[in-house]
């Protein structure tokens, strides 16, 4: 993980805020429970890591779970909602609802640093922080295989809407970059 020095030293404000929300919550056990729910397309990431899980609240006796979509057309949202439902039900919770919120819009700065490290290990270059990028790519994207910064963009879109396709010019391996938005 040493090679992550380009990304790790800074934690985005958006993430810190979300972390504070979780740490100050009286429903810690629910947040912890929902760490079991992962993204169906990138199973190493929990919905917490991804920034999709934004709030856990109680309204009277009802649990209210808020999630926000990564991309407008992200087909994973239905699966994620269904998975949250099963995890809560299996843990004995019956009175809950799942709310989809659009604002504030999801951004990659909401991702957890642990999530980014897991992406890197999984072979996907994690997103740079927005403040490190000026309208695209001022920084080179680091190859998750060999750590080289000598890489190029092959296509602005990869296998899913959230990724772009890059190639390492040193080890020649193509890799996905979780693009920052």
């Amino acid at each position, binding site marked *: 993980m040493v090679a992550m020095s380009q990304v790790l030293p800074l934690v985005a404000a958006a993430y810190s805020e979300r972390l504070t929300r979780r740490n100050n919550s009286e429903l810690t056990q629910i947040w912890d429970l929902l760490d079991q729910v992962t993204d169906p397309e990138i199973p190493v990431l929990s919905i917490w890591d991804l920034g999709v899980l934004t709030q856990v609240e109680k309204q009277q006796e009802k649990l209210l779970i808020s999630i926000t979509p990564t991309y*407008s*057309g992200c087909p994973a949202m239905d699966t994620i909602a269904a998975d949250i439902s099963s995890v809560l039900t299996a843990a004995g919770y019956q009175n809950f609802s799942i709310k989809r919120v659009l604002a504030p819009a999801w951004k990659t700065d909401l991702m957890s640093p642990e999530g980014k490290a897991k992406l890197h290990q999984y072979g996907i270059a994690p997103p740079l922080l927005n403040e490190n990028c000026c309208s695209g790519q001022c920084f080179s994207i680091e190859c998750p295989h060999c750590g080289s910064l000598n890489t190029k963009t092959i*296509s602005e879109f990869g296998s899913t809407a959230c990724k772009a396709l890059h190639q390492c010019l040193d080890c020649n391996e193509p890799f996905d970059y979780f693009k920052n938005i």
Partner: protein
Amino acid sequence: MVSDMNEETKQAVLNYTIRLGDDAVVIGHRIAEWCRNAPFLEEDLALSNVALDFIGRARMFYGYAEELADDGRKEDYFAYMRDHREYQNLLIMELPRGDFAYTMVRQLLVDVFNLYYLEQLISSTDETLAAIAGKAIKETRYHLRRSHEWVLRLGLGTDESKIRAQKAVDDIWGFTHELFDLDELEQQMADAGIGVDNRSLQQDWSAKVKSILEEASLIVPEDSWKVKGGREGYHTEYLGQMLNEMQCVHRANPGLEW
């Protein structure tokens, strides 16, 4: 909040929202037609992803329409159960995909429009429309980065790619005027701070599009003809054909969900 709206406003916002959904679903479907037909694999994936963004955008608008209508019509109803006369998308969205140059030139013209339009819609007094705009504009910026680069590559590429890109610009140009038209409903929505005054976008749009076309060494056409009618439900012959294909599964199996 929908609950605070009077009946008349609710109806107007509903119609306005359906139009935005129509724009998104129609161009989304046109781009999706490239799936497995694009010139190479990466482009196939890229276009499919752009299409997905637009279809997701349509779902957000239609989902809001479902809430506003509150009469049992679901988002699928708006997409799959209405005929071409009921669709109120701008004509530029429905034009057949043409060749790759045609698709990318249309995309550029639409992306620049969406950029300026969504920048305004973010400040809508309607919270839901503002939230959808806040989400969609991030995707539009990314789409524009790509369509901009492609138009440069086509305009500055081979003789053939330049000829095709120029032909696309010439063929589509007359459909761009409609983007800056305002009918009674749109005027009402703009006055209420809910919608956008499209006329105010024209100057920025023209400047940006012209600079990109010039950068690509393509000629900006004269304004010699224009077509409109989409917002009134008057379409080109192509929309009916497109909807026929897009809606056939749902119409054969009404209420089907997947």
